[in-house]
C-alpha cells in the first residue's frame, strides 16, 4: 500500500427531507477506488447511485439534503477538512463528473468552447485564447471531427454521441484523479454506447485515472469494470472483482439479477424473475432490505440487518447477507 486509494468513502449517509418526511436515500456506503481502476456501481433505479455520486462531488448543497460522511479522502487528502473554496478547486480538476444526459447537462446558451474552456480559465487561469486552443485539443482527443471549426457551436448543433463525447472531454480535460460517470451511456444507442465506453476506458488507461462508473446495466458493468459494487435500497449489498462476482454472486439479489437477464445464446422460455418490486426509499423494511423478495430469506433476515462483511471465500469480496457463505458454498458444489 504505497499509494493511498484515489477515493475513499466511509459510511456515507444522505437523507432528504421532503413534504415533511425523511427519505434516507443513501444509508451507509463505503467505497474505495484505486488508481487506474474502474469500479462499477450497479443498482436499479432509486437505489441511491446518483445520490452517492453527487454527495462525493459535493453537489448536494441544496436545502433539504443532509449529507454525512465518516471519512472522505481523495488521493489521501481529507475532503471533510477542506473549506468550500478548496473543495471547489478540486471539482473539475481532481475529480470530475460525466452526466447521463448530455443534452440537459450542457448549457444550451453557451458555446462548447466556452463551456470547455471555462475549466482552463477557472482552474488554470488561462487566457481566453489559450483556453480555446486547449479546448480544441481536447475535442480532437475525444474524436470530434473538425474541432477547430466547431468550437464555437452550441450543444444543440451536435449529435447525441458527440455531446456525450464533449462531456467526456470536459471530464478528462484537467487530467483528474477520479472520474465519476453517472450512467454515461444510458441515453445512447448501443453502437454509440460502445464507442463512449471504449473512449472512457482508453483515457483511463492512458491517464491512469480512477473511474467510478454508475450503471444499471449488468452488461455494461461486465464490459468495462474491474470491481463491481451492487447497491440495493441505499446500501451496497455486495462488492468484489467483476469476474468473480458474476460467476459466484454472494448476495441473493445479485444472483437473481444475473438470472433474470435474457441470454442471447439460450432463449429459455421462462426468465427467472424476481418477485415484487424494490422498496420505496422512504419505507424500507427492517432487517435485510431484500428479505421480502428473497427466496432464501430466513427469520433472521426479517429483523436483523446483515452488515457488509468481507467474505471468507474469495479475494477481497464483501457481501451483506446472512446467507452469503452458503450461497458461495452452494455455487461451489
Amino acid at each position, binding site marked *: 500500500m504505497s499509494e493511498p486509494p484515489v477515493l475513499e468513502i466511509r459510511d456515507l449517509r444522505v437523507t432528504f427531507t421532503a413534504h415533511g418526511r425523511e427519505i434516507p436515500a443513501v444509508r451507509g456506503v463505503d467505497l474505495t477506488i484505486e488508481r487506474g481502476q474502474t469500479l462499477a456501481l450497479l443498482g436499479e433505479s432509486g437505489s441511491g447511485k446518483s445520490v452517492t455520486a453527487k454527495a462525493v462531488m459535493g453537489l448536494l448543497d441544496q436545502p433539504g439534503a443532509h449529507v454525512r460522511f465518516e471519512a472522505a479522502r481523495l488521493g489521501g487528502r481529507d475532503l471533510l477538512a477542506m473549506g468550500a473554496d478548496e473543495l471547489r478547486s478540486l471539482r473539475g480538476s481532481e475529480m470530475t463528473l460525466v*452526466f447521463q444526459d448530455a443534452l440537459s447537462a*450542457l448549457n444550451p446558451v453557451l458555446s462548447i468552447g466556452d463551456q470547455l474552456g471555462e475549466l482552463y480559465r477557472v482552474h488554470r487561469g488561462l487566457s481566453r485564447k489559450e483556453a480555446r486552443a486547449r479546448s480544441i485539443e481536447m475535442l480532437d482527443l475525444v474524436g470530434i471531427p473538425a474541432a477547430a471549426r466547431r468550437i464555437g457551436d452550441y450543444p444543440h448543433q451536435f449529435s447525441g454521441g458527440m455531446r456525450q463525447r464533449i462531456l467526456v472531454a470536459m471530464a478528462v480535460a484537467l487530467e483528474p484523479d477520479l472520474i465519476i460517470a453517472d450512467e454515461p451511456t444510458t441515453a445512447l444507442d448501443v453502437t454509440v454506447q460502445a464507442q463512449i465506453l471504449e473512449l472512457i476506458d482508453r483515457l483511463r488507461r492512458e491517464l491512469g485515472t480512477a473511474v467510478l462508473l454508475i450503471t444499471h446495466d449488468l452488461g455494461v458493468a461486465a464490459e468495462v469494470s474491474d470491481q463491481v459494487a451492487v447497491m440495493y435500497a441505499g446500501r451496497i449489498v455486495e462488492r468484489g472483482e467483476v469476474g468473480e462476482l458474476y460467476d459466484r454472486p454472494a448476495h441473493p439479489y445479485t444472483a437473481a439479477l444475473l438470472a433474470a437477464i435474457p441470454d442471447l445464446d439460450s432463449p429459455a422460455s421462462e426468465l427467472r424473475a424476481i418477485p415484487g418490486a424494490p422498496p420505496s426509499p422512504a419505507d424500507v423494511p427492517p432487517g435485510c432490505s431484500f428479505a421480502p423478495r428473497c427466496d432464501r430469506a430466513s427469520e433472521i433476515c426479517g429483523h436483523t440487518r446483515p452488515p457488509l462483511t468481507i467474505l471468507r471465500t474469495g479475494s477481497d469480496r464483501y457481501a451483506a447477507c446472512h446467507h452469503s457463505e452458503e450461497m458461495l458454498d452452494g455455487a461451489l458444489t
Partner: protein
Amino acid sequence: MRFVGLRLARGLLTLWFAVTVTFFLVRLLPGDPVLAVADPNMTEELRQKLLADFGLDQPLGVQYLDYLGQLLQGNLGMSFRQSIPVTTVLMERLPWTLILTGSAMVVTIVLGIPLGVLAATRAKGWLDRVIQLTGVTAQSLFVPSVGIFLMYVLGVWLGWFPIGGAVDLDATGPAATLSMLHHLVLPCLSLVFIQLGGYVLTMRTTLIEALGEDYVSLAKAKGVPPGAVVWKHALRNALLPTTTIAGLQLGTLVGGAVLTETIYAYPGIGRAIYEAVGQLDFPVLQGAFVLLAAAVVVANLITDVAYGILDPRVRTS
C-alpha cells in the same frame, strides 16, 4: 432569415387585427360623433353634411377599405374635433408615452433581475420571502391608488416631485432634461410598481428551475465559482422565459400607462385616448389604438430578436 420573415408577417397580421377590431368597435359606439363636434341642437341638414364630411355616410365596408387604404399611405385621417391630422395629434403625444413606458421598462428590468436572482438564490429563506411578498403586493396594487398615494406623499407632503405634467415651462437645455426626469419619477414609479412584481416572480421561478437543471450541476461539478454559476450559467437560461413574459406584459404596461397618464396629467397617448373617448373622436381613437398596437408589435419583435440573441437554438437555425 425565415424566422425574421415569419415574425414580421406575424407582426403585420397583429397590426391588421388591431386595426380591424378597433375600427369596428369604434363604429359601434353609441352616440353621434357629429354631436360632439357641433351643437347638439343643430339641424338635420347640418348633421347630414357633417356626416358626409367625416365619411360616415358611407356603408361600413367602404369606410373600412377606405381606412385601410389611407393607413397604407401613413394617413390616419383627420381628427373630428380638432380639425387637424390625427398623425399630428398623436406624434405630439407619442414621445412622452415612449419615454414613460420605456423608462418604466428599463427601471423594471434593472431592478427586477437582481431582485429575482437574489430571491432565487436564497429560495425559501427570509429574504426570498420578503422579495416575493413585496413583488406580489406590488403586482396587486391598483394603479390609481398607487398614483394618488405617491402623488400625495412624495408630491405634496414631501414636495420632492411635481404632481403633474411632463416638463417645466422655464427649463431649457440640460435643465429641461433634468426637469423632464424630475416629472418622470412619479408616473414611472407607479408603472414600475405594477410591473416589477411580475418580473421578479418570473425571474425567480425560472431561475430556481434553471438552478435545478443538470447543466448547473455540471457547472458546479466543474468547480465554477458560485457567482458565475448563477450569473453565467443559470441566468442566461432563465432570461429566456422572462423575455417572453416581458413581451406578453407589454399590453398590461400600455393599460397601466393609460391610467398613469390620466392621473399624472402626463401628455401621452394614454391620456389622448381617455380624452378621445369622451369626445367620440373616432379617428384619434383609432389612430391611437393602431399606434399602440404597432408599438406592442414592434416591442414584441424586439423581444423576439432579444430572444434570438439570448438563445442560440433560435439564432443558429
